[in-house]
């Protein structure tokens, strides 16, 4: 394998790891705020790293530039969407989960 291929595989694997962290977070964490916290950051990082690997593989072509644009838009919009959801939830008066919720049940 060439060094480029090592870099691509490494980026995609690290991206997969972060996507997995996001999946574990959305299944295991108790309420909306903690889930948004887990997915917005690690899912964005996972997508951005995987797309970075794809862009490296394409190189300086039209497809590579398109992939980089896609990466940039994911980087901008994904955290904003999580922010908007958490903000709307707060506006609706959804209380954040606390330790006492678990002990009460």
């Amino acid at each position, binding site marked *: 394998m060439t060094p480029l291929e090592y870099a691509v595989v490494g980026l995609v694997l690290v991206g997969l790891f972060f996507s997995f962290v996001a999946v574990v977070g959305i299944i295991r964490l108790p309420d909306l705020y903690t889930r948004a916290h887990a997915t917005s950051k690690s899912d964005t990082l996972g997508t951005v790293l995987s797309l970075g690997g794809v862009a490296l593989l394409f190189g300086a072509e039209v497809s590579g530039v398109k992939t980089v644009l896609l990466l940039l*838009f994911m980087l*901008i*919009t994904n955290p*904003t969407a999580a*922010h*908007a959801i958490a*903000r709307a939830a707060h*506006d*609706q*008066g959804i*209380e954040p989960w606390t330790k006492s919720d678990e002990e009460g049940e």
Partner: protein
Amino acid sequence: MSSVDRPVRAYVESTIIMTTARIVSPFVFTFGLFVMFHGAESAGGGFQGGAIVASSIIVVAFAFGIEPTRQWLDDSIFRLLIAGGAAAFALIGLGAMALGGAFLEYAVYNISHGVKYGIELVELGIGATVAGVIVSLFMNLAAGLTNDADGGDET
């Protein structure tokens, strides 16, 4: 449950959401037009492009508040878009029949690349109709939401 004792208040803008919408929505709008025009050559088409254009307007409405957007984009604009798009489709199709061809037979127009321009115009008409219908549906649903919130006896 705690939403009951909160006062119903007006929409408060978030700087983060407004900035992102300001950056992203022009690109989304342009991409929607690109998809519409690209339908003549490869994947794409009026319906998909119209949906993307409508989504860029809906993003603006979410970020800057639905009522300000309603004041900015009057209902008559969407009525014009819907009727104009359908009329463009029908006129191009019937025009070909008037020149002795079949419905939507672009070749009888005798313009160079007439088929491609014909398809693009028809796609643009479809896109205008779809975008207008989606945005006005969204605006009507949002108007119902606002009235309920003003009525205010949610449990």
